[in-house]
């Protein structure tokens, strides 16, 4: 929005009168490009943080060679991937083989369009933000299935089926958690959901069990340990992306971490009050964006700790947890929340 006068001025100075619609489009595109570049850079930081936390738990040093404290390690890794040769296996479906990582990475970036990082700082402030997030994350399974099928490899395909079944299963309970939150907040707009938490973050209400379910489901949804069954290092090769090398692999990796950060962001927005500060005086002076980032990082820290300290689940245990524990619990909580909103908050049907 703030860039509209800039583009109008820029085109005016070369003698072109730009209609409002075009300058609006240009300013949105510029905003999106800047936002996505920042996101891609932040992934580098998060990968480094993940490895450092993991290493600290193991009493190792983690990456410490490239740059001060190993800060440029992720950049170096990315550059290494760029300069490698793209190998497409014989018998692979070439178009789909290339398409799959693009789907995975694009969807991971697209989901960020509706996440408000501070008051009014959101690319698209749409009224169905929560549905948009749910729709985009339910599409993520295509990148996986298409990659597994197009590779023309039994291992990749089996792993893709495993991953797809896992993602579809946990999507169900994530959907119910989202429903409880939107019942509680009374809106599908993510900014409005954050505003609804001004008098108490949803983390500290009856929605707390839903936060736990959402947290564990996001671990399963992104195939983070302890649910990383599709690339269990001790028993399998690298899962559905076993045939991928170079930049396509980098895209999968980027998409995976982007999804992790996205779900941390969702937990921040849905349960931890997004950009809202802790309402005590000196803390309220800190800008919203730092609150958002701080909370996001706190959630990410928990995810990294889980990766470091929890042993891997068995596949049947994973399915049992999803369908027999989380699904009934979240379904019950939808009913409870609806009842609470109707009878306690609104005082009767």
């Amino acid at each position, binding site marked *: 929005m703030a860039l509209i006068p800039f583009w109008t001025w820029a085109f005016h100075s070369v003698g072109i009168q730009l*209609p409002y*619609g*075009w300058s609006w*489009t240009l300013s949105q595109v510029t905003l999106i490009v800047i936002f996505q570049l920042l996101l891609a850079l932040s992934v580098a930081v998060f990968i480094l943080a993940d490895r450092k936390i993991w290493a600290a738990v193991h009493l190792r040093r983690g990456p410490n060679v490239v740059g001060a404290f190993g800060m440029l390690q992720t950049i170096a890794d990315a550059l290494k991937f760029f300069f490698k040769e793209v190998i497409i296996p014989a018998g692979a*479906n070439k178009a*789909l083989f290339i398409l799959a990582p693009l789907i995975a990475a694009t969807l991971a970036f697209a989901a960020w369009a509706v996440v408000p990082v501070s008051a009014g700082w959101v690319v698209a402030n*749409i*009224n*169905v933000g929560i*549905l*948009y997030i*749910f*729709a985009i994350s*339910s*599409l993520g*399974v*295509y990148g996986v*299935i*298409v990659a597994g*099928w197009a590779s023309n490899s039994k291992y990749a*395909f089996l792993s893709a*089926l495993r991953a*797809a079944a896992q993602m*579809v299963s946990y*999507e169900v309970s994530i959907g119910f958690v989202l429903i409880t939150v939107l019942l509680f907040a009374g809106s*599908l707009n993510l900014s409005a959901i954050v505003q609804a938490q001004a008098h108490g973050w949803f983390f500290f209400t009856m929605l707390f069990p839903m936060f736990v379910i959402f947290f564990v489901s996001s671990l399963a949804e992104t195939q983070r340990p302890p649910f990383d069954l599709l690339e269990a290092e001790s028993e399998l090769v690298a899962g559905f992306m076993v045939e991928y090398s170079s930049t396509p692999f980098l895209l999968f990796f980027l998409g995976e971490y982007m999804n992790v950060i996205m779900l941390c962001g969702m937990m921040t927005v849905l349960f931890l009050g997004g950009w809202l500060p802790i309402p005590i005086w000196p803390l309220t002076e800190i800008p919203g964006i730092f609150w958002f980032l701080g909370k996001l990082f706190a959630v990410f820290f928990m995810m990294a700790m889980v990766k470091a300290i929890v042993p891997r689940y068995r596949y*049947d245990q994973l399915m*049992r947890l999803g369908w027999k524990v989380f699904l009934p619990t979240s379904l019950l909580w939808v009913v409870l929340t609806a009842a609470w909103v109707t009878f306690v908050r609104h005082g009767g049907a």
Partner: protein
Amino acid sequence: MLTTIAFYLFSAIMIAAAFMVVASRNPVHSVLFLILTFFNAAALFVLLGAEFLALVLLFVYVGAVVVLFLFVVMMLDIDFEQLRRGVQDYLLLGAGVGILLACELLMILIAWKSAPLSAASLAHATPLHVTNTEALGRILYTDYIYYFQTAGLVLLIAMIGAIVLTLRHRPGVRRQSIKAQNARTPAMSMELKDVLPGQGS
């Protein structure tokens, strides 16, 4: 201007993708083109101001139904030569049905008349200041609540029916009982025996 460009872009891609669903030789490609078709349909819904329908289309059809299609199609063992051999046998019948449908579409196109005042009410998908979701929810859960609940009931029965039809109880299958496993104690599953020298063989 921009909306018009977007409309023609999305509709063109949608029609092309829909054509490819039928025309492409690989069934997996067909399903992927079907996804592209749904995507563009969702985009057209957004252009109409029906963003709720657009997203429901995405996560119900693309996110769930087509995933199952894709699963089934990928598992199928299809001989393409054999499939194509059958085309000639059904050509006459297929062409007949196709021509019939085309005639019906043409008749609708010629005879189509919209009611005099409908254009004004079509300008907005929902009344102003009421979001899409809210408007739909208000109608569904008040005026049409019985139809809505009946539809839900029918789906539930269909789901239970599918489970009942495919559930088989095979004898001799050892199932895991989490309760029994957790209730096990060392005393229940271990027995310590003193073996005297020379008697353990």
